[in-house]
């Protein structure tokens, strides 16, 4: 670990006017070939390279990114981290990630600003309560720390919330204390820094056009900087994964949808935990700069424009202004959209496929950021050993044929 960051390093550099900080990573041109090519330079891709090098000793790796690293969904999410998913397979996968988050800053010696301030899912009707009580009980048996909060406890944790005087009153909440938020850019930069140090090539502004195969075995990839040979190709390019899979003759059940988010202007601390409300599509947390980061719902149609419709913003803000009356006098600073690739059962794909040496990690929908370290870790294991890790065994491609789905859409719609 050559570059060491600490308060001491800040003081040392202060004396030399901060002029000789070392370069975090190089941006070389691609070599002729590598053992493993990772397509997609987001948190998941760079993380996979890090764990391949650190835990499996594979260092002759290239991470190929079409734009700038961390520029896709890694730089466009609402930074929420939790693992209180319903089904066992999902709970184990996401909690594997939360455990890695808990000392990622130390491991990468780069501050992820991972703040375990708790994540709260609000219940607005009887159906929500039943669904959450079931999820809490399932989480408990899986060793997770989710608990039920009544309205009074919620008001103590979030004083600015109006729980009673609104169209769908807040009747309670499922709360996971170990959940929280982290700085999204730091994940990509931290993984890039440390994997680059171990010899991994990080190639930016180089777009993979198609994947070359020869009788069901992967040969390499054609890129805007020419053909690059590889024995193994791991595609982790969110919405574009299905486009690239097509070039290798593999079909993926992905649909890419805009998922929008917005931030308010910066104010002094007002909310110290993360509050999610599925019924009204509004998720809120406050960044360290003081901006309130708000997540909205997905748009109802496929799109890659990283924008989405204005009406989605209106839907979320309508709910937030009622849930938090202080928003009546606050202003929206920025709005943007990411592209989330969604599977029919709202669970990811971390899997081999019929083509030898070709692996896919995609379909994360709205859960991509929170899963970054866990996904990268088990994907590295899958690529290195050509066998899935126990944790991601269930998230294979075959489930869409035999029907063994892991449906995280939550219970069916309200009925009775």
């Amino acid at each position: 670990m050559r570059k060491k960051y600490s308060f001491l390093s800040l003081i040392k550099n202060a004396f030399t006017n901060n002029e000789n900080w070392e370069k975090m990573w190089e941006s070389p041109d691609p070599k002729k070939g590598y053992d493993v090519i990772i397509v997609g330079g987001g948190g998941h891709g760079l993380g996979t390279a890090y764990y391949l090098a650190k835990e499996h000793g594979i260092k002759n790796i290239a991470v190929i990114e079409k734009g700038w690293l961390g520029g896709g969904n890694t730089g466009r999410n609402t930074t929420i981290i939790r693992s209180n998913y319903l089904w066992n397979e999902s709970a184990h996968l996401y909690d594997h990630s939360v455990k890695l988050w808990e000392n990622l800053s130390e491991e990468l010696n780069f501050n992820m600003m991972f703040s375990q301030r708790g994540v709260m899912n609000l219940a607005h009707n009887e159906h929500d309560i039943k669904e959450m009580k079931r999820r809490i009980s399932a989480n408990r048996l899986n060793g997770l720390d989710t608990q039920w909060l009544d309205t009074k406890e919620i008001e103590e944790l979030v004083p600015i919330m109006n729980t009673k005087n609104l169209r769908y009153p807040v009747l309670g909440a499922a709360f996971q204390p170990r959940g929280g938020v982290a700085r999204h850019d730091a994940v990509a930069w931290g993984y890039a820094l440390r994997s680059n140090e171990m010899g991994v090539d990080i190639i930016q502004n180089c777009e993979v056009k198609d994947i070359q195969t020869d009788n069901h075995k992967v040969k390499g990839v054609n890129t805007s900087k020419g053909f690059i040979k590889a024995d193994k190709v791991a595609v982790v390019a969110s919405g574009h994964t299905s486009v690239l899979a097509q070039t290798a003759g593999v079909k993926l059940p992905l649909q890419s949808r805009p998922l929008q988010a917005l931030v308010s202007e910066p104010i002094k601390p007002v909310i110290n935990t993360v509050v999610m409300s599925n019924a009204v599509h509004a998720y809120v947390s406050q960044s360290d700069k003081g901006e309130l980061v708000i997540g909205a719902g997905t748009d109802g149609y496929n799109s890659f424009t990283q924008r989405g419709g204005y009406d989605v913003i209106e839907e979320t803000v309508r709910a937030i202004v009622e849930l938090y009356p202080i928003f009546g006098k606050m202003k929206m600073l920025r709005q943007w959209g990411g592209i989330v690739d969604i599977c029919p059962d709202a669970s990811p794909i971390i899997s081999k496929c019929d083509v030898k040496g070709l692996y896919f990690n995609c379909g994360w929908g709205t859960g991509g950021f929170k899963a970054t370290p866990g996904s990268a870790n088990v994907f590295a294991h899958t690529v290195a050993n050509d066998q899935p890790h126990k944790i991601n065994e269930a998230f294979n491609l075959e489930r869409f044929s035999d029907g063994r789905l892991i449906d995280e859409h939550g219970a069916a719609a309200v009925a009775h």
Partner: protein
Amino acid sequence: MSAINNKNCKYISQVEIKITFDGKSYSAFDGDTVASALLRNNIRLIGRSFKYHRPRGIYTCGIEEPNALVQILNEHNEPNTRATIKRTYDGINISSQNRWPSLSFDIGSINNILSPIFSAGFYYKTFMGPKGFWKKIYEPLIRRTAGLGKPPKNFRSKSIHQNHNVDILIVGGGLSGLIAARKLIDTNNEVLIVEQDCFLGGILKNSNKVKSIDGKNVFEWVNETEKLILGSKNIKILKNTLVTTYNFTNHLIALEDKFVGKKIDTNKSELTLHKIRTTHTILANGHIERFISFRNNDLPGVMLASSFEKYIERYGVAPDENPVIFTNNSSTISLVKSLINLGCKPSAYIDSRNKNDIEDETKDYLSKNNIPFYPESEVEGCEGNKKVEKVYIRSSNKEISSIKASMLCPSGGFNPDIHLFTQSKGLVKWDDKIISFKPDTAFQNTITLGSVSGNYKFKDLCSEINKKLSFLKTNELNLEIETNIRDDFSIKELWETKTNKKSKWSKSFIDLHNDVTTKDLQQAINEGYDRIEHLKRYTTNSMGTDQGKISSINSLGIVSKILKKKISEVGTTTYRPPYAPLSFAAIAGRSTYEYYDPERKTPIHNWHIKNNAVFEDVGQWKRPWYFKKYKTETMHQAVQRESKQTRQSAGILDGSTLGKIEIKGKDALEFMNLMYTNAFTKMKPMTSRYALMLGEDGMIMDDGIICKINDKHFIATTTSGGAPKVFAHMEEFLQTEWPHLQVYLNSITEQFTTFNISGPKAREIVSKVFSDIDFSNEKFPFMTFKTFNYKNTQARIMRASFTGELGYEIYISPQHALELWELIFKHGKDFDLVPYGTETMHLLRAEKGYVVIGQETDGTVTPIDINFNWMIGKKKKDFIGKRSLTRSDTAREDRKQLVGIVPLDKSQFIEEGQHIVECENLPSKIKMPIEYLGHISSSYHSPNLNHCISMAMIKSGNKLMGKKLFVSTPKGTKNIPVEIVSPVFIDPENKRLTS
């Protein structure tokens, strides 16, 4: 009000008002903004910067302001309000932000002393201390110093939306906007002009650049133009309205402040959000002056040249009598003329251009008024205690001299305001003549006019507009525009001036709002963050509430120099809407608070209220949850009472919220057989059947009762929540898969109210109410229905029940609903009829082992899983979802199946949502995951059986009948011993239903 007052400014009244700033009272003129009012009282220090808490003053005179953000205490503490925009009124109470204990003495400025340590991205490189320290110690500290304003007070706004559909939208009521408008007067285009100020005119009123138009002074020309426009039939003007968002297919969002310069009346709508759909958009929103980076360019007293000029011309106040002017272009001479007209004089005019590039008129005017002139020179820096006191000038021979001054006005040139154009997905291009980006290829019907299109010349402005609007076939308009400055704009590239001061504390700012220095840019590039988006995120450059309006192009200039690339190769960061911070209250409009979502009510809603119903939200419906017999009756007590009484005598439920669909046509039977799992072919007319609807994945989507009038006419009921989804599902398959089927659908949910009466005494009650109908078992068997005429309306009674008791569902026109409901109660009194709510309905159906879609099923349950094999038409060739039922995973034996569960100790209660396990105790701290067989989907204390009954979905449940297992409890570690039983707890042989 000690500052110089420009008497002949026509946009400010001389009426005095009183304002309060940080507790002290000042006087100002009605029409002043907070900024112009404070400048009138020579107040320079107005806030503290974001990171280093350095003293900051008023830097501009508009929306692009990076520093002067204040809190309006008498408006619910509204934070981060731009002093340069917010208009004052008598009694407004303003406070500065981000400083403690006071503006002049701020503890936070310790950050400035430690600033060499707090370099760009310092927080990524430290604070990683022992586990949990980040959350408990470092983060709270950082969060307290960050963030600008204090949080506002709670406020329920009444702002509204106003939609518009126009042919042409003109953004900006300045010179170009007005010329375009005059060309469109009384044409057949419906035009809307949107102007952010309360006066039209733009550059005409904001500067001294234009002397006259067609011989008239600018004020007269604007008034004359405004009269013409208001007189037209086809043009409307919106003032005090700022366009913030340019959506796809020409849909723009603009925010109007309805209380400009007035105290807000909180029961009126203080903001209106205009949502404008237009065929053509004309962007005439002008340009923004950019600053120059030099040492201490953030000191209070540094103000952009055109802003200084705007305070004189638009607000009638000269912020200083002898400012130093530092420019790299030909436009700042108009500021000099403004000062001379007022009897003031710049104490120096520093122009960085080469001597022979500087216009002769400028040189002559400066020498005529003996203004010290420094050609080919630049400002090296300035110094002073919380305000400018000295300005250091580096002359052409590189020597540095200093002069005394209290204000310094830099001008780094002008950027066309391309934010909205890029939001419209248009592409911009670099223009070396104006050294900035300008609009190039539009993606939508977007036309840019005047300075926003990069055309800074006045002479050929009319010809540009005539050419660009020629497709509208309007009249040619040519105006004689006389200017105070030379028409062709000249500029020399200058992003920053270097300092030879080696101190670690000397700072030259590239982003005033987020305290980003030019050294930070260099450091970020050294560390490898050389992509412009990386740079922005690592240094937070241009991510403040001003989005770097006066500085983002400068940062591209500096970065391109360091990387030795052309600026167009460096590219820009994404322009993310909105153009300026947009009020949340305005975005929400009136569709929030009490109007967030409609409250759907059944026709007898008021009867429920009168009879102390407690309501539950079911989708948008308000349904009675239970009825309080006396004030203090709890839900548990009410539900036990209602459930017991229904089984012993009779109970009635308002079921009007259930979906009802009328299906009719030649191929109705074939259609129903394809949509539902059941076989309807052999079903006799006038009978009804409980039916299941699946998705193509084989999972249960909805259920309901189907009444068959004949093979060509059915009526289907659905769950309340599923009603819109089932209707849409039927329409989709009819139109897209089976257009050959002649079938028509009508939703009749609201054409019939539904009363479900059940219980042993039900037959007696209905016989009394409908005396002419024979309710005997022979004449009216179970699962059949009759249609009849009730007071000339179509009515229907079906013998079915969701409680397991003898029951009838009465479908009646809403016109007679209340009257019939009360008649039923009149007769029901002597049979002890009780009204019950959804909670009792849940309990009674659970006693009977009936499932609820969405509770027993969660989108992963097939009919076989809940023993509904009997509902699957085996001989049917196809129905939606049939193929999925035989997939390997759905045909598995060990799937979760529906069972009943009772506690061995009858006094214990099982909680819904808990799980069935094989171990008696749970460890207090669960480390390794514990296997479970399934979860409890429903659980109630049955008053009719006097013990808790539950339904559960557990793995291979059918094989576990009679087995002893355990159910977890929410908190404890001791599990409840239970026995697996059949889910039907009452009347398994259905005797009560069919007798």
